[in-house]
């Protein structure tokens, strides 16, 4: 008997029972008006979190102690793996990632049970029951179909080790963030479902959902940004987004969550779009479950997918149930979902936010349609037809440019409309900047229409953000005499949602400019040269000095061959780059590229080696990618904005006047 495996498996079975019991206790407790049962339900949810943590602890222990009797450990780990890479092994593979997903979900939901459920007594039983059922769904897969603690028939002397492609520091943070982000859509889902079940469909659930949705937005965005960064620096094909089905699955839930963060404002202020907000949070979670189904089912072939297993069918059922139940609940509550006000003008903030939702939904449907195209075509025409990156770029590109345009002009639109004169006054400056930028860019040589619209709109977003910060800081300085820098930094403290939002928009604009630059103006050069020779690429001279070997001796790496390149521009040295190939002991004929990147604010020089022969003649590829550094800078601004938006607006304690108490009475 393998003690670790038994402990881990028992913890999971108990967690499954606890989650199910939580749902039962909450339901019965509500029906029979027994608050103590509800309390038991809450504690059962917390127990689930503790138990899944124990299971993760057991798996971690098995990995660290090289317990290869456990099949999963043998498949993703080996004796010569470094300790930190074993953290990555924890969530690699089908059972590992499912365990990580369920663990993160149980922690989040336990936190939700502690923090938010006490504040929603009118929906507490409904929330706990829903949460319990969701956890039961995922734990069921873990216990019955994809147990991480299954023992192999024969214990191998050493494990296979992690797939060579995954042996990289990026693997230590990208998957956890992304999995956590996908999982985090479950909390707004639980809140929305609880609101529907309890019938309390005014702004109450929105108030609580906002914080969790913002957290989900932030973590999911960071997960995707990290994925792009990892694809760029590690995978070595020169890009950061390939429209791979699994990449698409990761971005899909982000779209309704972002739309929700915007339209909830309309419900808060005007009592409109109640049904739509519910649809958005339910859709976000449904898409997250779709994502996990997609990866595990092999439905659409992807570089990521685990493929072909019973787990795939199980998640298809889970996703279908989620969608059917959501639709049924909304249909049931339609009579209670009246808008409290009407659209008063087309040129208003409300319309702008509705258009925001429309565009995000359009993008989501296009991405979903393109990803599922092979499945749909096989159903109808009995042959699989795929659409690749050209399709997505051609359709999503213009839509994203429209989103940027909306950001640039929409934030100055007033609520409820306003007179035409007001509109002209507010929109005049941004429109002027837009047109001027477009003309300037056109003159400088940018002709591609989508690029022109996107870049001009991005510039306007920058202008509007700057103006808002300046105006706000000036107002703050007028109220109290402080310096400019203090005023600017103090603004998010005064109105976190607004200024945090501005920064996120600014981040998006910077990212847009970086994307346009690196996609539209990329230059590629290939050369096959021998040591001592050199070639030209994008104004730089690359001289091949020599081919050297390096033997790290860890993580299954046998040897690394590096091509030493001296880079010069106009006779002055720029860098020495060492791209190469990494060979693994277990997979001697399947090398992995080592990419060498030289970055500055203007461009990245992205260099990799495709191979060399016995005479050391090597084929080298150079991509000159303009403005890529701004992609990461934009991501940083975006993240900062998201974090600031959490803040509670600074409350100044009113200065109390001291009123002396009458003699002989208690102090107040």
């Amino acid at each position, binding site marked *: 008997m393998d003690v670790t495996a038994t402990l881990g498996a028992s913890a999971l079975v108990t967690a499954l029972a606890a989650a199910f019991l939580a749902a039962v206790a909450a339901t019965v407790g509500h029906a029979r008006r027994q608050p103590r049962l509800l309390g038991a339900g809450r504690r059962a949810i917390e127990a689930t979190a503790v138990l899944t943590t124990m299971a993760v602890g057991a798996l971690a222990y098995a990995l660290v102690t090289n317990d290869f009797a456990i099949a999963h450990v043998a498949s993703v780990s080996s004796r010569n793996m470094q300790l930190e890479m074993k953290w990555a092994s924890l969530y690699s593979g089908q059972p590992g990632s499912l365990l990580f997903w369920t663990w993160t979900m149980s922690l989040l939901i336990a936190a939700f049970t502690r923090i938010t459920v006490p504040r929603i007594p009118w929906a507490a039983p409904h929330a706990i029951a829903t949460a319990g059922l969701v956890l039961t769904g995922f734990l069921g897969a873990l216990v019955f179909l994809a147990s991480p603690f299954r023992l192999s028939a024969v214990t191998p002397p050493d494990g296979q080790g992690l797939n060579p492609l995954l042996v990289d520091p990026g693997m230590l943070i990208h998957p956890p963030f992304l999995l956590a982000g996908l999982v985090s859509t479950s909390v707004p889902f639980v809140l929305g479902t609880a609101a529907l079940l309890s019938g309390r469909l005014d702004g109450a659930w929105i108030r609580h959902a906002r914080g969790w949705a913002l957290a989900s937005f932030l973590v999911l965005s960071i997960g995707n940004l990290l994925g792009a960064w990892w694809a760029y620096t590690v995978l070595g094909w020169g890009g950061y987004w390939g429209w791979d089905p699994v990449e698409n699955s990761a971005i899909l839930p982000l779209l309704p969550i972002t739309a929700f963060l915007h339209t909830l404002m309309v419900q808060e202020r005007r009592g409109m779009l109640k049904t739509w907000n519910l649809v958005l949070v339910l859709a976000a979670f449904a898409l997250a479950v779709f994502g996990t189904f997609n990866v595990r089912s092999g439905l659409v072939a992807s570089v990521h997918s685990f493929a072909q297993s019973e787990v795939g069918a199980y998640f298809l059922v889970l996703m279908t149930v989620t969608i059917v139940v959501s639709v049924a609940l909304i249909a049931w509550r339609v009579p209670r979902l009246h808008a409290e006000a*009407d659209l008063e003008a087309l040129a208003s903030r409300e319309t702008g936010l509705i258009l925001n939702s429309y565009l995000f939904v359009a993008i989501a449907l296009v991405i979903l349609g393109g990803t599922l195209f092979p499945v749909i075509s096989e159903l109808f025409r009995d042959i699989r037809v795929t659409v690749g990156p050209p399709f997505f770029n051609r*359709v999503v590109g213009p839509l994203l440019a429209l989103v940027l345009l909306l950001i640039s002009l929409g934030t100055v639109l007033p609520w409820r409309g306003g007179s035409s004169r007001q509109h002209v006054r507010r929109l005049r400056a941004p429109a002027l900047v837009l047109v001027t930028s477009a003309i300037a860019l056109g003159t400088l040589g940018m002709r591609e229409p989508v690029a022109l619209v996107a870049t001009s709109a991005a510039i306007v977003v920058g202008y509007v953000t700057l103006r808002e910060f300046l105006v706000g800081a000036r107002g703050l300085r007028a109220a109290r005499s402080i310096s400019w820098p203090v005023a600017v930094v103090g603004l998010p403290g005064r109105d976190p949602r607004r200024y945090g939002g501005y920064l996120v928009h600014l981040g998006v604009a910077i990212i847009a400019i970086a994307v346009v630059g690196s996609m539209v103006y990329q230059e590629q050069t290939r050369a096959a040269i021998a040591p001592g020779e050199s070639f030209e690429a994008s104004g730089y001279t690359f001289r091949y000095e020599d081919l050297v070997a390096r033997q790290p001796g860890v993580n299954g790496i046998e040897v690394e061959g590096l091509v030493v390149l001296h880079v010069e521009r106009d006779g002055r040295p720029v860098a020495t780059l060492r791209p190469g190939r990494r060979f693994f002991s277990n997979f001697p004929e399947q090398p992995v590229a080592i990419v060498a990147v030289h970055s500055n604010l203007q461009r990245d020089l992205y260099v990799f080696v495709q191979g060399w022969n016995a005479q050391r003649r*090597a084929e080298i590829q150079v991509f000159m990618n303009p403005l890529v550094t701004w992609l990461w800078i934009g991501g940083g601004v975006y993240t900062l904005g998201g974090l600031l938006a959490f803040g509670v607006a600074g409350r100044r304690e009113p200065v109390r006047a001291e009123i002396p108490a009458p003699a002989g009475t208690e102090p107040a």
Partner: protein
Amino acid sequence: MSDLLSSRRARLIALLVVATTAISVLAFQAAGESASYYITPIEFQSKAALHDARVRIAGRVVDGSIVEDAGRPIAFRIVGDHNDEVAIQFPKGVVPNLFGPYALVVVEGRGRGGTSVDAYSVIIKHENEFYADRPPEGSISSHFLPTPGPSAPAR
């Protein structure tokens, strides 16, 4: 509830309908231009309509079939489940990580006469593995596992 067809709402809905039509047209056009058939080697060989079409073929790289120039693979053969082989020409484009004999690849390119494909992209596909007591038959891992010595019996 106010009149659904109030002119403001009607105008907004009309705008969205027009926009949806435009997006759909764009999407169908783009799909038509970038569509490629996702097939296996045997399907490529047997269906004449595919012989010169834009295709995406999945198969395993045949050991010994890789032709190199300056160390970079420029041609190879892939094999499907029925011992059906197709020749792939890949003179340009990025060679993916883990490319080599027995790798499971997806080649996107244009067919040439039903016997070979001019590839513009090659990507590696994740193995169809669920549990890995032993790696899938024919995979890279199954060919390059270190030979096990006497091992401990399962407890």
